[in-house]
């Protein structure tokens, strides 16, 4: 269902600098619809996993406290240009998305 994730991964010295933009409403469940007055149900990314060449480097848990269209930046020592970084997320409704990129 989700729109594509955007990812940028480049080597900065011997560290891979990875930046990801996820598309997600990140509703806390506490917000009211301006028109109906009803609470908008909680709908947020609950976990994000990142791997490099298949090996896990980041396993994050998130909540509705993360901003809409979550941004995530992290750094990994060890990879080289040409290695593959993959990031995937799952949300509290069971939706998921993933993206893969080659480190430049």
């Amino acid at each position, binding site marked *: 269902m989700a729109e594509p994730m955007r990812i940028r991964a480049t080597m900065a010295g011997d560290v891979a600098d990875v930046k990801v933009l996820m598309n997600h409403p990140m509703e806390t469940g506490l917000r009211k619809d301006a028109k109906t007055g009803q609470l908008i149900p909680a709908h947020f990314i609950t976990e994000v996993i990142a791997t490099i060449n298949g090996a896990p480097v980041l396993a994050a848990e998130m909540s509705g406290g993360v901003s809409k269209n979550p941004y995530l930046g992290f750094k990994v020592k060890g990879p080289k240009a040409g290695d593959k970084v*993959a990031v995937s997320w799952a949300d509290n409704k069971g939706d998921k998305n993933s993206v893969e990129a080659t480190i430049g």
Partner: protein
Amino acid sequence: MNALRRNVLKGAAGAGAVAIAVVAGVLKPTQAMAAWNKAAFDAKNVGAALKGIGVTDPADSKDITIKAPDIAENGAVVPVEVTSAIAGTTSIAILAEKNASPLVSNFNLSGGAQGFISTRIKMGQTSLVRAVVKAGGKSYTAAKEVKVTIGGCGG
């Protein structure tokens, strides 16, 4: 702790196959990771939230740097960057102490991932933004106040 989760998080031998399966969509992230830590994320105060991620009395540390604004332009999207210079950092948690649920996110790091996280968080009001770092079996913390105002103009 779920052995599968331990393997994924610690990058132990065989975890590579699990991770590839995750990315291929064969294995959902929710299966590779333990169930979402509801207790920690639903906690209404910092102490309970930290307890939920297995932390009590983290030591103040000057080796944790929080880059966050003095005054947030917009409380819905506050850029926060945490750098931990503590050797062997295995996780970074970010909390906004006065949020209804203070724990915003918890990042587990492995396989060469550095003590560095950059993200954007929501803040309901002026409060301390707190980073809690786990390294070498111990926990450390630092905090920075971020003011949140409601402006009068700006269309």
